[in-house]
């Protein structure tokens, strides 16, 4: 008997008992459907977190003064002055994995124009910062190297600043605003980025040359941070190693001693944030997997009933020449057909449920092709695994006893 015939026989047996076949499938359908939907929800939330983090910048690496020890006293990061402009200069001279690098200092305060004012933050940076944080200028232009060298009192402002200081729709370009006591001439306006995933307004900021902010606002000579971009995401780790080496050498840190700075990459941040959603995904998938297991046990149960019910049929088939393996395959294929058909319906249902969740509840949902393939494989294996014992039992029946069975 070839496989085509065996499949025919199995389909025939199933069609003789359609409703029971469907009920048996239901376990698998629900199992697979929920696996797919759960994984889609988990993956969707993970993706949306990753997306939002990648909006923050391109392969961004952040260096901050670290929790080094001075005379046994741990100091808070902000009060430390370990990062210098020399560090920045060494980095841009020696690096081979970094495409952009900017010093960073910042100050919070009130921005004022005429009768309007707004609380905001001014960031002292250089032009590379635009690439690192994915900012672009929509009107006017960015300040130049000359402006940085001269510590010019020029700035580029975010859309929120424009909205708050120029509520009447005046053209902000060329206007001079004040930040604290210092006047800044607006030479550009940033393209709006909107809110990020943490609900922060990414347009509520003023960008100015770091030299200007250092000297005229903060009156400091050290840096509060250095931002950089790795050439590619894959080179991020190498770039971090390189930066660590450069800074340790610059700061004369002996081997074995702690760093006096802190380097974080965007990837790290991203994986930190998505680890929670990974955990969620695993939990959801476990629950779904258990329902698949229950579905499999349902198959085994029904297959046992089916074998017992059809004992005489098995006896007859054997007496007219069916071998043990023919009977084994017949029932195994029946079990696999139930599970695979249940799997197909389950996949459709799961994808449908995922789509419904997306459009009705508005959750980020993403069906991964691998989850479909995986559920499918699991279904087939479930069918074989749980169909095996009943089928084996059927194939080991004694033909004489089977055919006499009442």
């Amino acid at each position: 008997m070839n496989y085509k015939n065996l499949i025919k026989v199995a389909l025939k047996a199933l069609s003789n008992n359609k409703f029971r076949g469907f009920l048996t499938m239901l376990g698998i359908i629900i199992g697979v459907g929920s696996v797919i939907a759960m994984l889609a929800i988990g993956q969707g939330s993970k993706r949306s977190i990753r997306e939002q983090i990648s909006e923050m910048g391109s392969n961004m690496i952040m260096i901050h003064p670290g929790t080094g020890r001075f005379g046994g006293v741990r100091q808070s990061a902000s009060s430390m002055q370990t990062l210098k402009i020399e560090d920045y200069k060494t980095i841009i001279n020696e690096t081979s994995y970094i495409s952009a690098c900017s010093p960073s200092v910042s100050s919070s305060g009130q921005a004022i124009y005429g009768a309007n004012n707004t609380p905001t933050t001014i960031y002292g940076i250089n032009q590379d910062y635009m690439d690192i944080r994915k900012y672009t200028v929509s009107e006017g232009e960015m300040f130049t190297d000359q402006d940085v060298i001269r510590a010019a009192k020029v700035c580029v402002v975010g859309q929120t600043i424009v909205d708050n200081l120029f509520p009447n729709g005046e053209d902000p370009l060329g206007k001079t605003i004040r930040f604290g006591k210092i006047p800044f001439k607006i030479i550009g306006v940033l393209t709006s980025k909107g809110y990020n995933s943490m609900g922060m307004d990414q347009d509520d900021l003023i960008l100015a040359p770091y030299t200007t902010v250092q000297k005229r606002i903060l009156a400091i000579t050290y840096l509060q941070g250095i931002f950089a971009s790795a050439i590619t995401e894959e080179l991020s780790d190498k770039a971090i190693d390189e930066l660590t080496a450069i800074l340790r050498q610059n700061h004369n840190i002996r081997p074995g001693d702690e760093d006096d700075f802190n380097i974080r990459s965007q990837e790290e941040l991203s994986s930190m944030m998505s680890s929670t959603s990974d955990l969620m995904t695993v939990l959801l998938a476990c629950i779904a997997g258990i329902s698949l297991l229950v579905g499999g046990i349902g198959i085994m149960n029904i297959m046992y009933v089916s074998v017992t019910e059809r004992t005489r049929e098995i006896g007859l088939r054997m007496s007219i020449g069916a071998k043990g393996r023919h009977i084994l395959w017949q029932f195994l294929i029946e079990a696999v057909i139930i599970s695979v058909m249940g799997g197909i319906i389950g996949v459709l249902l799961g994808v449908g449920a995922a789509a419904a969740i997306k459009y009705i509840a508005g959750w980020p949902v993403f069906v991964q092709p691998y989850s479909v393939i995986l559920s499918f494989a699991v279904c087939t294996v479930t069918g074989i695994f749980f169909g095996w014992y009943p089928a084996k039992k059927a194939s080991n029946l004694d033909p004489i006893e089977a055919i006499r069975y009442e």
Partner: protein
Amino acid sequence: MENYIIRVENLRRDFVVGDETVHALRGVSFSIREGEFVTIMGTSGSGKSTLLNLLGCLDTPTSGEYYLDGFSVQKMSRNERATLRNRKIGFVFQSYNLLPKTTALENVELPLFYNSEVSARERHRRAEQALIEVGLADRIHHRSNQMSGGQQQRVAIARALVNNPVMILADEATGNLDTRTSFEILTLFQKLYNEGRTIVFVTHNPEIAQFSSRNIVLRDGKITEDTPNTNVKSAKEVLDSLPVDNGL
């Protein structure tokens, strides 16, 4: 050597039930030639079914020799015996044993499914042929549950014929049927006998012996009689003489 389909020598079959041993067959020897119509008769429990199961390669003897169409069955594995049943034997059972919700044609095709040398087309053709031979040309696509007992037994006989076996084994094939239908089925067996088929027909009904060419009587697992019948009575004639039951 003569053309023996079956040759058994000192066949024994013991069943161990708990501490007891049941001697179902206690040394049975006989041979059956091609084209014989043999009835095996005996009271209930005399060992008829046990003997038929051995002849049908469904069971193996505790001791003794069995040659089917020249092959020694003792040494065969489970699978080899399955193949032998598929190619050389046609079974007819008391309770028909048709697949439920399945057409006559599909039921008859069944043995050929387990013979990979037969193509789907050939299978179909032979099954149709067998159904015509048993007089069911107009019932080919009827389902088993839509047919009377006599018709179902005819389907079962067609199924036993379809693989062109060297012999047909019937165990109480008329046991579930009324007198008239029993004679119809007997007429069919006689037709097959006249076409040269070898038939072994187990029954507890002594009347049936007159319609076969040879009668073997079993008693407590031993042969007590083995007599040829030179004057085979025609089942067809008996059938024609029976009053027609018009269902009142």
